[in-house]
């Protein structure tokens, strides 16, 4: 094997890692917002699935993938609003509500497939978001092959990491979100509306999770498949936990999962004979290892998952 070949594979692995990590990054950032405001959102998986479907459907209706992205993202926010209503107004058990959302998403998207396309399991192909050739960047020797020619949603995910980090740790609203997640009673006494902040956090998580779902159906593929999220919402949650409820930490954890997923394809390319089932297990095994706290103890916000009982 010569250097050119190895470099080529290296660039390819970096590019596929970023692609595989993108839906996770969006969803994990969403998780950060929700948990930081004190609402556990295990429904991210369902949010992603609904958004993946409606992203595809929007693109199908308008033949414009970007309108699909918009529709899918908004649906993500809407589904999250349901979770917010149940958690905040009805003080539902947040895990239970999230599980119900996930169940609803699997059954609901299947029924919608039948309703709109009379097909089982898979939608027809739609216009997808085309990759970008970033001028200048794509001409840099090694780097250009790795990150110069990616889907715009991948670049958006990277930008969102920085943006979310700034928003949470650099703005007043971010500070309020964090304080509500840590100590809602104290936040309430200084006049912060727990209700509003929590709605904000959960709906933000839906919009971001929605982007992650949309990427699956319009970025990495051009159609919707039954259950196409395949546990990515849960993996994103795990990434967020091992990233210590921090946008940047979550981002690095997502890269690791993306890498594990990208490896699946590369082993065969390198001529290694590993049963594919073990490669499929890799991202899930990584998740378990990561939530064991190999990166140090991850402490959730103190009020995470606990309905707020005080005056609104």
């Amino acid at each position: 094997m010569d250097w050119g070949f190895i470099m080529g594979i290296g660039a390819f692995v970096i590019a596929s890692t970023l692609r595989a990590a993108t839906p996770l990054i969006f969803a994990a950032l969403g998780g950060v917002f929700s948990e930081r405001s004190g609402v556990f959102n295990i429904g991210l998986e369902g949010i992603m699935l609904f958004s993946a479907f409606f992203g595809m459907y929007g693109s199908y209706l308008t033949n414009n993938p970007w309108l699909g992205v918009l529709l899918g993202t908004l649906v993500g926010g809407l589904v999250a609003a349901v979770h917010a209503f149940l958690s905040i107004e009805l003080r539902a058990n947040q895990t239970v509500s999230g599980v119900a959302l996930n169940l609803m998403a699997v059954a609901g998207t299947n029924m919608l497939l039948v309703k709109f396309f009379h097909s089982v399991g898979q939608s027809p192909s739609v216009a997808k978001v085309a990759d970008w050739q970033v001028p200048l960047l794509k001409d840099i020797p090694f780097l250009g092959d790795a990150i110069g020619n990616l889907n715009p949603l991948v670049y958006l995910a990277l930008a969102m990491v920085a943006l979310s980090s700034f928003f949470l740790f650099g703005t007043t609203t971010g500070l309020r979100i964090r304080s509500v997640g840590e100590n809602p009673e104290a936040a309430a006494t200084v006049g912060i509306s727990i209700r509003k902040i929590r709605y904000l956090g959960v709906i933000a998580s839906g919009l971001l999770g929605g982007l992650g779902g949309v990427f699956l159906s319009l970025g990495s593929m051009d159609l919707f498949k039954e259950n196409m999220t395949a546990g990515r919402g849960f993996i994103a949650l795990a990434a967020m936990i091992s990233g210590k409820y921090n946008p940047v930490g979550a981002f690095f954890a997502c890269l690791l999962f993306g890498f594990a997923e990208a490896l699946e394809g590369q082993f065969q390319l390198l001529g290694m004979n590993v049963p594919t089932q073990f490669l499929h297990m890799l991202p899930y095994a990584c998740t378990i290892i990561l939530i064991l706290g190999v990166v140090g103890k991850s402490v959730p916000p103190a009020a995470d998952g606990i309905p707020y009982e005080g005056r609104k």
Partner: protein
Amino acid sequence: MNIGTKLKEYGSKLLFPAIALFCALIAGFFIIGWFGGDPFKAYHHLFFGAFGTPTKFGETLVYVSPLILTGLGIGLAFRCGLFNIGVEGQFILGMIAAAWIGSSFTGLPAWIHIPLTMLAGILAGSIWGAIPGFLKARFGAHEVISSIMMNYMALHFTGYLVNYVLIEPPGSRPVTRMISDSAKLARFLPPSRAHLGILIALACLVLVYLFLWKTKWGFEIRAVGLNSEAARYAGINVTHNMVLAMAVSGALAGLAGALQIQGIQYRFNDLFGFPGYGLDGIAVALLGNNHPAGILFGALLFGAMNSGALEMQSVAGISKHLIGIMQAVIIFFVGADYLIKKIRAQRAVRSESLPAATPVSKEV
């Protein structure tokens, strides 16, 4: 307590699931209408598809027995404050272990081979369940996430086993060998596939009830679930109980998987998705308020829905996924029981004009 108050107590316990079910039926009504179907016709076929004839009832039992066991498994873990979403994976491991042991021996008498095969499923399920329990107890790893990961690992791990290790004959499509006749459970109500596993599931209902409410272990598990800090203070080993609860929970799911092989499939086929009994078991446990009697009711309801859905789909043309949506609605309502409790508490305040504490669900 006299009979009147006791009946009233049971009535109030039934009220909530009944409301949840009613709302799910209403939701389904609108969805069917939106799909251009006739809701009455759909519900007619849903009901008679499940209970119409003895054979159909037999087919319903095919769904009920695993749901009793997975629901019990999840309910038992809930009682310890743990959400075992990994029942799906534990079920799968139970299936493959049973297929392996069931097909490995020939010439064993049935009275040894049947329990041996079940035991294989129980063991495999309990190991798969104990892992997230241990990770939670030792490292504080969130059991919801680790047990979901164990589900996917189970799917791919058994895929490996059936493609490379247990494939029979080698080179064929990925299935294991048929289990021996000596490991099969007898069927009744032919031509339905109803089998004696239902009796085992019912026996487990009683056993789990006795375990949780009549033994010291069961008491400790429930104490940890109610308030783990208080339990720790009272000298209960919380770590130990979490692992125990998850292992027993996994054992029940593994047994369900074994019965599925011994009574229905007779061999393990490569899976292309989750069988779904574990996920439905969550709804069953929630609907049954994690009590064996309630779980029996929930399993009957969801078993009937799953079984009737086939006729509803083929005759009334309504997708069987409608059932999934109705189950989600039921879970939503059970999860949001705060509303009812609040209304009830307010009524109690008004009728007694005494300050009453607002009970808030902290059960899960």
